[in-house]
């Protein structure tokens, strides 16, 4: 069927982030690295556990985890914002988070998903969690509950799925077993077992 009416949303999102990573300041704002300690505290994860950094962005969280001797992999739409050190030393897979991931191995011990879910188009959020559930035994989520201003620089909206803390809590608890969650006012923290 001739497809003249709509582009694939995946392509539109990839293009958006390719353009967004052209802005250096965007790479400065990546909270994943600062959340590694909280992830380790909540999960009790010990090296050499296998961790997938979901929506890895610049990969600085992966660098920190790798330095702690965890077995880390990254997956994201684009490697454009990837830090040079992460690019050289940590395996990266390019992929759409709500479509089939390119992994055939047994599930990762942990998924580390920071500053990602709020960027997913609403209609694909549960599909993304479904992929995470397939590939991770447990997952740590840090989700923004408010809007974001970075997209203004390219005339786009980045935070597409802005939902209350309890909305994510209830949905993650429906997809797995919520072990712990904390409302940080502007963001929510969720640790789930699948």
């Amino acid at each position, binding site marked *: 069927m001739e497809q003249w009416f709509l582009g694939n949303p995946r392509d539109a999102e990839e293009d958006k982030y390719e353009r967004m990573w052209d802005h250096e300041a965007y790479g400065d704002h990546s909270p994943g690295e600062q959340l590694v300690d*909280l992830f380790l505290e909540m999960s009790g994860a010990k090296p050499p556990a296998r961790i997938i950094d979901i929506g890895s962005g610049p990969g600085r969280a992966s660098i920190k985890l*790798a330095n702690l001797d965890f077995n880390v992999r990254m997956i994201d739409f684009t490697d454009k914002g990837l*830090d040079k050190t992460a690019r050289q030393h940590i395996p990266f897979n390019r992929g759409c988070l709500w479509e089939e991931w390119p992994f055939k191995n047994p599930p990762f011990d942990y998924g580390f998903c920071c500053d990602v879910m709020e960027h997913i188009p609403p209609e694909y959020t549960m599909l993304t969690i479904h992929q995470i559930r397939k590939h991770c035994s447990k997952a740590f989520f840090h989700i923004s509950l408010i809007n974001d201003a970075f997209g203004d620089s390219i005339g786009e909206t980045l935070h597409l799925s802005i939902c209350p803390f309890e909305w994510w809590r209830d949905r993650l608890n429906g997809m797995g077993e919520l072990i712990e969650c904390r*409302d*940080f*006012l502007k963001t929510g923290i969720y640790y789930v077992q699948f």
Partner: protein
Amino acid sequence: MSNSKKLVSEKKQEKSRGKRAVPRKHTMFFDEVVDVGGMNTSEDRIKQHIEHNIRLGLPQIKPYLLNKDNVIIAAGGPSLESCFDELKEQYEKGYKVVAVNNTHDWLIERGINPSVYVMLDGRPFNSSFLNNPIPSCKYFLSSQCHPDSFRKLAGHQVYIFHCDAYAVEKEILEPFYQNNYHIIIGGSTVVLRAIMLMRMLGFQYIDLYGFDSCWIDDKHHSYEQKQNDGEKTCILSFRDYDPDGPTFKVSFWMGKQLQEFQRLVNQVGDLFKLNVHGDGLVAYMLKLGAELNQEQMEQLKEIDDESGTEVKESGEPSARNSDHNKVPQGKTTRKARRPRRKALESKDCGAGARATN
């Protein structure tokens, strides 16, 4: 990863990071309002409650922009009953109703469904106020409330907020929430905190019913509440302001609430417009622009040490524990400042508090 060489991100290699100073929270204001009050639950028990309740995965109450809606806070004082028709009329006009403690069931029985319910007290008997929760109500419980209160609300819309009666709470909240939390200031009673809660949610036009801080016709509440029966009381009069005026029978906690309310209005009265309904002491003092003097404070102190009873977990009254109504350790009682007269005078318009009757 080899131990011999750690990875360093490109960003870190390019820039050197300085330590960013974290601004200190201004605590003077909290001390000004709160240190008059005391706690009826021990510090250890409060800590246990907080440690348990913050792990329930509840959303915190967050600030909202100002709105122009009207909200009613229905406290349980005796004038709630006498002013009920007025309250109902405002409810039917669309005013949102906030219930506290036992006014929840009292209002529902009379055809008023509260939009919000607030609970502050950490004592276990307070969970008995929550036997009939309704789906349309949002329940705001302090993290120091007894866990039974939270259990009774399973499946309902529950939100958590935090107070700072003991400094130790910050030791628990700061690492858990990584500083992402708010303290709701106010006094030692739920109405005072409810006022500040509503203001944080953006409500500045607040009508208070049943906020009496006195006994009326030998009643301390509009409904039966055995926990307060048999309290020691004293009689207060304000002849300096009103030579032929009435006298008021007051329990210690009522006088304390009154003083804390005065302080609250002095400190932050410009943040909201309060209307206090009924013939209680609060409304009377607002009309006069009066304040409690040293002699009256001494009268109240005399009825503090031996007054009242506290209900044990079994529901039977027992002797009040020594922590009741005491100023928390480490804080000193400050001499009451002379309030700004402007904030306490009756006004037809403008910020502050006024009496309506």
